């Protein structure tokens, strides 16, 4: 038992070790790396992908996949902006408008996730196909709403909303706090509640889950709803950053979120999820870009290539350890 326990720990520590290696590398390359400013910058930039990836950890653990999250974020952002701009004609209470916009975004995320889940379970269609479809739908909808251009939030509303992205509590930017909170809640739900066990059991074997009195459809729909809420949360933090949404908002976020989850040690085929690893994965992805920015050794244009290599290397390493264990 002790031997096995140690090996499992090793697996959990893997993404963290990679993170530390990257940080040492960053420090070696540029002294400015370890500055408080740069570190909070990295954390803040990781927040969107990190928050979405917490939700993706649930979906992927359950054996599903959600390709629609990037488009969904763009659509929610566009819809929130339109609603808030429209509310200006109803009330001049800017704070009320922002609160309404945020609530609307949250509900929209919940509904969008539910829709993905229902199509997958009731419709009996693979998650890959359903979310490929909704990905196209949301992307196209936001382009349509923006009439091919950009949707901009009213300046006055944005000035009230702005602190959600730019302000901080005791030096910690709000996006970082929200990421931390999401991660903690996600961790507790996945590891310490019956639902968390059920999600991973459904991912490991739907038959076994069904024969263990688990309502597998419900578990899956809820996983997609958690994903939807996480997307909404990320969007709520994102909107005040630029105050706009366009057809390129959230582009490729789905791939970054999935990459973060996989680097973190969650199995793509389901059955096993790690929130801590996911957060480490999101940070690793941001770090790569950040380090490339700080050095001239490798062109910044190769950011995607380095990320790609890291993803494949991470999975290769995990496979190696899995074999040792097996």
């Amino acid at each position: 038992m002790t031997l096995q326990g140690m090996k499992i720990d090793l697996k959990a520590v893997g993404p963290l070790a990679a993170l530390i290696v990257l940080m040492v590398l960053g420090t070696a390359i540029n002294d400015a790396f370890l500055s408080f400013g740069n570190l909070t910058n990295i954390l803040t930039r990781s927040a969107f992908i990190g928050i979405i990836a917490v939700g993706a950890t649930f979906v992927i653990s359950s054996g599903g996949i959600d390709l629609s999250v990037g488009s969904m974020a763009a659509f929610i952002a566009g819809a929130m902006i339109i609603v808030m701009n429209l509310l200006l004609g109803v009330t001049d209470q800017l704070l009320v408008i922002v609160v309404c916009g945020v609530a609307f975004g949250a509900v929209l995320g919940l509904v969008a996730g539910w829709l993905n889940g229902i199509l997958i379970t009731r419709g009996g269609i693979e998650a890959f196909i359903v979310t490929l479809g909704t990905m196209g739908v949301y992307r196209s909808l936001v382009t349509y709403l923006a009439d091919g251009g950009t949707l901009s939030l009213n300046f006055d509303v944005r000035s009230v909303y702005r602190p959600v992205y730019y302000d901080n509590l005791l030096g910690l930017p709000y996006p970082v706090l929200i990421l931390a909170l999401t991660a903690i809640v996600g961790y507790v739900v996945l590891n310490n509640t019956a639902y968390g066990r059920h999600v991973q059991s459904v991912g490991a074997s739907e038959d076994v889950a069904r024969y263990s009195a688990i309502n597998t459809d419900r578990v899956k729909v809820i996983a997609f709803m958690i994903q939807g809420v996480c997307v909404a949360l990320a969007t709520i933090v994102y909107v005040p950053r630029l105050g706009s949404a366009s057809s390129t908002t959230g582009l490729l976020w789905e791939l970054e979120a999935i990459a973060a989850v996989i680097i973190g040690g969650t199995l793509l085929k389901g059955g096993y999820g790690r929130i801590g690893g996911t957060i480490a994965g999101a940070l690793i992805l941001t770090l790569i870009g950040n380090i490339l920015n700080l050095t001239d050794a490798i062109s910044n244009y190769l950011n995607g290539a380095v990320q790609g290599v890291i993803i494949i290397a991470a999975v290769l390493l995990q496979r190696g350890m899995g074999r040792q264990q097996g």
Partner: protein
Amino acid sequence: MASDPIAQDAPLLAARRITKSYGAVEVLHDVDFDVRPGEVHALLGENGAGKSTLVKILSGFVQPTTGSVLLGGQPVSFAQMREAEDAGIVLIHQDFNLAELRSVEENIFLGREITKGPFTDRTAMQARARELLDRLNCAVAVTARVRDLPVADKQMIEIAKATSRNASVLILDEPTAVLTKQETDTLFALLGRLKAAGVGIVYISHKLAEVELIADRITVLRDGEVIATVPAHSISQDDMARMMVGRELTDFYPHIAAPAEDAEVLLQVSELASGPEVLEASFALRRGEVLGFAGLQGAGRTALMEAIVGLRPVSRGRVELRGRPVSLRSLTEAKAAKLAYLTKDRKGKGLLLGSDLVRNFSLLALDKFATPFIDKRRERAAFHRAAKRFDLRAAGPAMKASSLSGGNQQKLLLAKVLEIEPEIIIIDEPTRGIDVGAKAQIYGFIANLIAQGCAVIVLSSELLELIGLSHRVAVMHAGRLTAILEGAAINEEEIMRHASGLTAAGASAA
């Protein structure tokens, strides 16, 4: 069927002084084993005795740590299974090795397709596949998709595949575990023909009656060592069991007192139908009763039970629990009604093989430990209690379920299901593929449940097990419950007569 092998015959395939260690664990110690042309050599042993490892070494799947494998007297070392197969040694695994989404014919010729020029010759392969299956009296269509077939047919396809290889040595690991009596008879007839053709057969089974019937020689393994290799006619089934277990087996089936005349009816099923599998079934189950269910593969026993517990829709009929009509739509509702169901598909539906023992144990009864956060200490304590109660032999709670032996997996499944403290327990194939020692323990657990005032339904394709355990035996044929046998009527002949539809009660004669 047993006949004396010609003792002087040189062995076709022999293992000499084989030792196999995995790390510090020695699973085989100095084992000698051989098979001669035209004989059935049975390999017996409890789970974990080393049978599977030995046949894997014989078929080139695993390399021995020390010792050698001789083929026709020459030492051989197969780098791959394929080489062993080319040399005429074919192993049929206990767990099937079939491409589920492909057709029967494609599976039989997988990796050895008949070709005409650069293309596969479908017609030739289909004709040959038909021929091979006909020899097994297996009517399955060669174009059928394997996934859609019942397990018995899958087993037949594996055997057809093996015979298509023109094997000189055929190794069968528990081939009859999923077969009915008739299918088993067909298989034995085929093995007889192969024997006559000079094929050497290594036969692993837990069914001692079969071994007695078919084997020429018997080798018993215990804890990785050969206890004895003897001519089959020289020992009885009791001897075999004793040699395997290394201790006396007192009365194999526990005495289970009959339920009182006025015992409460816990479960009453009336004219139940479900889909095409279950056409009509009515029966009652009393507190303190073991009700056996017999039937051929596809008779609808499993489907009936799954309809009762809410795993598949009921199309007609009534179910009453403790006198109250219910319609359970999910296993969750069954659980709340203290009704438990153990699937026969331990690996596919019963246990999460990649997860640890504790998680497997608590999965069904998880809400007991989650309020709403899982109390892991209480969960672990409950696991240890259950592990003790069911004599679960495992290295530790962090071990994966896949590393347990069949018997221990079954005990884990039992522990998992009984953790919800059910009153009615339905067990589908309680002892399939598990060793004699674990079998006796499982029977003991069933007796204990009855003593505690539960009622148990046992579905089994082993008639002796049904006869040994049940107070009454219900028999199903082609989706209908055709008879409920009591007292002296509970015997093999009577059960088979009803199961095969040869009675007036059966709607159509088979």
